[in-house]
């Protein structure tokens, strides 16, 4: 499983809509100071709900909307979509509707929560819509995407919403699926600028708890 692309709209230093395609393996992001490299990582954290606003160097969420974009309208919106290639992911890792799971003969083992059509199982070739929930077709079992939108009014109030494969979901539903993919908010797979030595300066108990989390 890997990230196929990240699409940023009006997010931090990204005006307009910018697509950043990514391939499996080893990619380096480089460029001058202040050009926007760390902002791309903030976009990943933003879309996947993995950090607070402070964790993305913003005092409050509205600071994340591109400043030019905010100035010009009653409501400004920033959004980020992260698309994963899941063609090598076993179907049981995907949380779907109960019908979806049984239709494939692989009932998801501990699916107490009833997430909306959160993923498309690898073999599905038609939308399942018995309860009115439609699974969008373009993700032909090979892609899985998350979109987060942040709308800010001119008075400064804001709303943030998540969607998986175009279907709205809650943050906890998103986290539940991400956990199955082994992506965790407290995970050590994202190391932000200046943080690498924090593992050394943290106290011993916090360090042990990292192992607790994994076990």
């Amino acid at each position, binding site marked *: 499983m890997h990230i196929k692309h990240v699409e940023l709209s009006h997010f931090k230093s990204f005006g307009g809509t910018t697509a950043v395609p990514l391939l499996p*393996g080893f990619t380096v992001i480089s460029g001058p100071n202040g050009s926007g490299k*760390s902002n791309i990582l903030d976009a990943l954290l933003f879309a996947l709900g993995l950090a607070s606003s402070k964790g993305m160097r913003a005092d409050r969420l509205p600071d994340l909307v591109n400043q030019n974009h905010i100035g010009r309208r009653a409501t400004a919106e920033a959004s980020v979509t992260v698309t994963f290639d899941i063609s090598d992911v076993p179907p049981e890792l995907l949380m779907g509707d109960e019908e979806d799971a049984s239709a494939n003969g692989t009932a998801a083992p501990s699916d107490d929560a009833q997430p909306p059509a959160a993923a498309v199982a690898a073999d599905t070739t038609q939308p399942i819509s018995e309860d009115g929930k439609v699974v969008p077709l373009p993700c032909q079992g090979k892609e899985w995407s998350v979109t987060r939108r942040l709308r800010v009014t001119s008075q400064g109030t804001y709303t943030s919403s998540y969607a998986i494969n175009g279907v709205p979901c809650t943050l906890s539903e998103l986290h539940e699926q991400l956990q199955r993919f082994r992506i965790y908010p407290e995970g050590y*797979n994202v190391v*932000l600028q200046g943080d690498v030595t924090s593992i050394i300066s943290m106290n*011993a108990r916090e*360090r042990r708890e990292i192992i*607790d989390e994994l*076990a």
Partner: protein
Amino acid sequence: RQHAFQEAFDAVNENFKAIFAQLSDGDGYLQLDDPQSPFNGGLNLVAHPKGKPVRRLASMSGGEKSLTALSFIFALQRYRPSPFYAFDEVDMFLDGANVERLSKMIKHQAQQAQFIVVSLRRPMIEAAQRTIGVTQARGAYTQVLGINLEAKSASM
């Protein structure tokens, strides 16, 4: 619960020893404050970079701390792999030789997971399969440009 912890701890410890030896050219291992009942205490990193006698973690140099921390992160990764890793300038304290050592390890780990590494250091850029160039002209927005080192052609 303690059994699950012990299994995780032992696996991560074995990984840490091997990775630390490779990155820091020395001996390192994990140590529990209270091995009999781990949840009573914390977890310490014991590090002998380049065969130096053990000293408290805080007195290590900037480069030594970075390599020790990265060894721990890679040790966790080998036990519970994530699909992707995003590192932002984790090489900022490292001298040229250590940047190169780290870039070779990332190249190796990238066979099993996707690595997205922000870096300004040349050995890291040269070790990658491709580079995404990011720029922002004065008064403009961030622009992104992709350079595929393996195919040696600019794209986008």
